[in-house]
Structure formats: structure tokens, C-alpha cells
């Protein structure tokens, strides 16, 4: 009988079976049905599976579920609060920073993690933080614009 572990996803506590080698990505998608987090490569190269663990952007396909025990996990589904979009989600829509949208959750989570630790990132800081996220549709310039726009929105909402 395997012991279970507890993980906290988007402020909700879940009891999960920590099979050895089981990835956090699989737990989120296949067990908790949080399918906003995507599979793209399985080797931490594309960023589609990005989630926040204790506020830091991590690749959930490279994270064992057991390693997430007791940590605070935020997925794309957790960014919207009481029907209000996260400023970066709003900014993605305003900047039209998506085409097929498949990379978008990973991009937004990476960008949100960046904004949380650096509220006013420069263009090169944005590119540095998001270099590991791939958009095959090629919307990179718009994504950079969206992150900048979200930084301005946050500034305005604080001011």
C-alpha cells in the first residue's frame, strides 16, 4: 500500500500517490485534471509545462511529484482570482500575444513568476527569464510587449 503525499495546488490541498518517477506534470494533468499546464517536450526544453512552486517558475515535466510535497504550487488555472484575470493574462489578450495558444499558459506562468520577483523587468531581463519557453507560432515580440504592459498595469494599480 503506497503512502500518499499532500500537495497544495492553487490553494487546494490534494492527496496523491507518489509513484516513483511520476512527474508533477502528469499528476496535474491526468489526476487533478488541471490541463492548462501542457506537455511539449518532456525534457524541460520548451516551457509549455511551466508552473510556479513557491513562487518560482519550474518545469513540471522535470519535477517529480514527490518533490512537490508540502510546497505551494500555482498553475495557470490559479492565476485568475475571483473571475479577475492576472494582469499578465489581460496583457496577453491586449497585446494579442498568442496564435494557437498552446505555449501561452507556460509563457504566462513564466512571465508572472518573473514579475513577482522583478516588477519592472527590462527587455533583456524578460528575454533571459523566458528563453526556455518556445512559441512555435513566433509571437515572441508580442509576448515581450505583454510582459511590459503587465508591469505597467501593476504599477498603475499599486499607484
Amino acid at each position, binding site marked *: 500500500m503506497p503512502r500518499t503525499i499532500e500537495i497544495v495546488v492553487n490553494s487546494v490541498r490534494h492527496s496523491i500517490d507518489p509513484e516513483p518517477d511520476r512527474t508533477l506534470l*502528469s499528476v496535474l494533468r491526468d489526476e487533478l485534471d488541471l490541463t492548462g499546464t501542457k506537455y511539449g517536450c518532456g*525534457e524541460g526544453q*520548451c516551457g509549455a509545462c511551466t508552473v510556479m512552486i513557491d513562487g518560482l517558475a519550474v518545469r513540471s515535466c522535470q519535477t517529480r511529484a514527490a518533490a512537490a510535497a508540502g510546497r505551494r504550487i500555482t498553475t495557470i488555472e490559479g492565476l485568475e482570482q475571483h473571475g479577475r484575470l492576472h494582469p499578465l493574462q489581460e496583457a496577453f489578450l491586449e497585446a494579442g500575444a*498568442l496564435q494557437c495558444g*498552446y505555449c501561452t499558459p507556460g509563457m504566462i506562468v513564466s512571465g508572472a513568476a518573473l514579475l513577482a520577483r522583478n516588477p519592472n523587468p527590462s527587455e533583456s531581463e524578460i528575454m533571459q527569464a523566458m528563453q526556455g519557453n518556445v512559441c512555435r507560432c*513566433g*509571437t515572441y515580440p508580442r509576448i515581450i510587449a505583454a510582459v511590459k504592459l503587465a508591469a505597467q498595469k501593476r504599477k498603475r494599480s499599486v499607484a
Partner: protein
Amino acid sequence: MSLNKPTLEPERYELREGPAYNFSFDRRGFFKALGGGIVVVSFISKARGQESGGGRGRGGRNIPQEIAAWLHIHRNGAVTVYTGKVEVGQNARTSLTQAVAEELGAPLGSIELVMGDTERTPYDMGTFGSMTTPQMVPQLRKAAAAARAMLPDGPWESINFAEVAKNGTLVKGVTGAGKPKQAVDWKVMGTSVPKVHGREMVTGKHRYTSDVKLPEMLYGRVLRPEKFDSTLVSLDSSAAKNIAGVTVVHDGEFAGVAATTPHAAAAAVGALKAEWKSQPQTSSKTLFSDLLQPAEGDRRQANETGSIEKGLAEAAHKLESTYTVAYIAHAPLEPRAAVAEWIGDKLTVWTGTQRPFGVQSELAQAFHIPEQNIRVFMPDTGSGYGGKHTGEAAIEAARLAKAAGKPVKLVWTREEEFTWAYFRPAGVIRVRSGVDKNGRVTAWEFHNYNSGTSGINTLYDIPNRKIGFHASKYPLRQGSYRGLAATANHFAREVHMDELATAAGVEPLEFRLRNLKDERFKAVLRAAADRFEWGKRKAEAGTGFGIAGGFEKGSYVAACAEIRCESGKPPRVVRMVESFECGAVVNPDHLKNQVEGSIVQGLGGALFEAVDFEDGKILNPRFSKYRVPRFHDTPEIDVVLVDRKDLPSAGAGETPIVTVAPAIANAIFAATGERLRSLPLMGTSPTRPAASGAAI
């Protein structure tokens, strides 16, 4: 009554009590299920039917062959539009919604599109070839305009729809051109309407195929051979079968598993012991000489206009160059995926495909069941770029589901996507040409081996031309890719035009304009050059400017590239200006997004993407080995839209990619004096040096 006549009078379909003819969806009581309201069916002529509503290979099917699309206005005013086109990120869902809103006068929010569902939408050959805008947009506008004519005047909100359709479902058929609004009168089309369903995508709520979950659904994996063209000699599945909840399928060359978790499926497929047999196969090292071997039956023919020999005799400078283009992969971020469910002998498949009806046919053939028993549904998908025309994942998932007796989801791994999909064809292009002392091209001979015919013809005004495509024996599975061969052909043509300009001693933009009569082509060249400040800005040491132009699929494009070369580092694209003209612009922001995306995607194929293979194996089937453009590769991008409201709208998802590579190659020449004729320009593999010419 036959519905196959190309000329149908609209009045014939103005019926008060439902349609008199036998739609297959009528047979299923579809119109009744709509709960009344107004239905307008848009018909197209037979000639157009090949693309949308067409009947190739539709034997035994009972859907009238000329239906392009139809729309339904519910008794409460909600509008549902049914089209077989699909959404893969090109924002067709938005542009088609705009088209309906424009003609109907309905708010965008009241219109919902049902797309790519073989059960509910009319037959459509597929979403490719930049056809949605020139073909489906007019069809929907026509239907919407006809629907509007059935409604009382006044604002949408004031209409009592229940009253209009008080005697049941009001049905009308429309054919012919109709009278859609002129582009100058557009109010909704021509504006930057935001992406429909964008909110679902930024919140992670949109369900792609790979996100679909059904009760009792299992997870599939397919056993792949180590090499292409392998035969399964034997399979020992005893260990896999011992894993709890695992179903193993071995059917001819197909072997796969279904299990209760993805983890168990991976373990089970890993536990299959297979013996494969295969023959030695070629490698990318000999690719370009291999591609010069003719395919069986290819006679190496070319079309000649005027006389090449005469043109060469008149030339002051003669040139001969060979260009090569490597195989590249689409690498859509959502790999191929399918969820299949059998209920009795009826099959439902969710899958990401650009051809839902094509996949339906593939499934019918694979399982020997009628197409009517198969429903293929395509949720808006994680991109395609021409790479999702086929139904492998659908067939595999359906085969596993049939054996397991439960629904099965199959998501290809990245490695499978890089290996078992198909590639953009590699090619060799040989050009022979001559230019006179006035800088006029006198002779143009152009032979494309294997990569294809799209964009093969030149728009330059050259009296003596000989142009041919030659089919070759090719080593990898190859197929459509955004822009098809137009990228290879524009690369060779526009680099060669630069070589001729250099030989003639004429500035590259002036050289192109001097050899052109086509005013639309000239206009995009000038638009890109003006924005770039071509001829006004001087390139600093180590930088170079390049220009290229082209035409394909009804639209014109020109690009200017700025390159920076620092010693010891690969050349870097620092700025791209691209002008694009596709008639009347439907959605300026989404069009800009497509052009920007084409530039970024085009950079990969131009600079570093190449599929490396050897003896039936792909050597770089991962993002860690196959480099795709990332944030740091992205130059400053400036898009100039040339909006021609006097011209019909053409598609825009493909053509903006074709000038990226030649503009960059020409800029590298300007910066370094080195003429690169091989894509990718930085070499075909990280372990191999870049070749300055094609090594054949």
C-alpha cells in the same frame, strides 16, 4: 431532386417547413434538434467543390456536394455558424466570425462557430493552402447577407427572432456571388477584432485534443521501430501483459498498449520485446546527391518560353548556381494527439488535424467501416503549419480503443512527433541565367529537384525562361509545410537575382524594379524598402542589408533584413522589415501577428533548422538537439501592411514566410562578401561547418 447541378436558383430553397431534400443531417433530425429559427445554407459551384464542400473520394456519402457552410439563427437570436475549416492559431475562427457579423449586423458575441466536426459541419477538404480567407469568408458572407435579408430592418437587438420563425424552421439556400458589402463599407471586417476564445486560452481552460478526458479513458502508447521501413518479425508481450490494467495490441505491423495511467502505458510499451528487420538506408550526408536521382517515371522535363540559348547569347554576364534546402520539421508545440471512443460499431475521434474529413476517410479505410459511422472532431489545436494533414494518431488511438473496449487517449511524444510525422521536403535547385549590359535579365533556367512546384514561376519580366520541377527518389516521409516549396523556390530565385545584380553592377532593389512589370510586386518592394530606409541608411562595418520579394497564393511580400556579423560568432539578424499585400485586410492586428510569426518561424529554417538522419534514424528528434527560434533569436520586426481595399482578400498564413531566408542570405553577402546558397545558412548540423556553396 438532384443537388449536383452547379446552377441552383436560390428561390428553390426558400422553404417554410424544413428542407425538401435529403440532407444527411436532416435525416438525423438535425434541423429539428436546432429548435426552430432560421437556417441559411451556402452552396458553391462544382468547380470550387474540390476545396470546400467537394466530393473527391466521398463515395456513398449522402451529403450534397456543394454545401460550403451554413448558419443557424436561434429563436433567441444566437447565431451558430457551421464550417469544416479548423482553427490552428491562424485566427480563422475570428476572421470568419467577423465576416458573419459584418453581413448580419449581429454583435460578435452572439456568433459562435462550430468548426471541423464531421458530424455537424459540411464537408471540407481541409484547412491549408491559405484558402479560408479567399473561399470560406465569401461563402459565409453570402449566407449571412441572405439571412439578414430574411430579417426585418432595424438593429439586431430589436429583432423578434421567434416571431420571424414562428411557423417552424425557416430554411434558405444561397448560391452565386450574392451582394456582400464592399471593403470600403466594412465596419467589422477590416478592424482588429480581438481573438475569439482568447480568454479560454490565457486561462488554460481551452481543451486541446491532448486535454480531452472521457470516463474510463485509458492512455495509449505505440511501439515504434528503431528505424524507418522496418518489418516486425516477432513480438513478445508477456511482460507487458503482466502489468495490471494493460491491454496489448499486435495487429500486423502495429503494436501498442493501453493502460490506466500514462506512466503504466510507458512501462508497458517499454516491456514489449520486439524484433524488427530493416534494410540499410541513406543519410543526410549524401542527401543532395541522392535527390538528383530521378523518381521512377520522371523525365526531367521543363517548360521553355522563348529560348534559353538565345537569351544566354545576348547576355553580358552568365551565371550558374546550385542551391540546397534541408529537411525541416514542423514541430508544432502540441504533438499529434487523438482520443478515440467506440460505441458499438460507431467511432468518435477527437484529434488535432487540418483535415478532419480526410482523417474520417483514413479511419474508414483502416477499420473497413462506412464514413457515416465515424465522427471526427477537431478542437482548436496547438498549431499545424501544414504538418497535421494526416491521421496517424487517430488511427492508432482508435485501434487501441477497439481492443481495450474503452476510450483511449494517445499523445505522441516529442520524439515521435519529430520522427514519425512528415517533413518539409529537402531540395536542390539549379539556376542558369544571363543578364545584359543594361541590367536586364535575358535568360532564366530554373530546375527544382524534389522540393516542389509552389512559387516556382518567376514574376520577373524575362523573355527567355525554362522552368521545371523534377520528382526525385527521396529518403524521408515528406509533405506540406507552411508555404510549401515557395520558400525553397524564393530562396533560390531571390538569392540568384542578387547574384545577377552583383554581376551587372546594379543596386539590388533597383535591379529588381528594372526587371519587373507587376505593379503589386513593385509596390511591396518599395513599401519594405521605404520603411527600412533602404538606400538611405549606410551599413556600418560588420553589418549588411539584404532584400527579397515574392508572390504566392494571391499575395505579395517583400522583406529587408539587417545582419550583424561579429568575428567568431554566427551572423545575427538584428532587424527585419516585411511588407505584405493580400488585398483587402480583414483583421490588421491578426494579419500583423501572422506576418511576425512567419518571420520568426522562417528564421529557423533560414538559419539553423535541419533534420539530421542516418540509416533510417532521426539523429536530432528533440528540442535539445533540434534548434527552433527562441526569444534571443528574434530580431526587431517591423511589418508594413499594404491594404488594398479594391482587391479581394487573399489568405495570409503562409506567403509571409517565403522572403525571410533570401533576405537574410543577401544581407550576409552584403556584410561579408560570402554567398551562402544552402539552407540552413549556418550549416545543417551543429557538428558540421557551414558550407558556403552547395556541396554536391
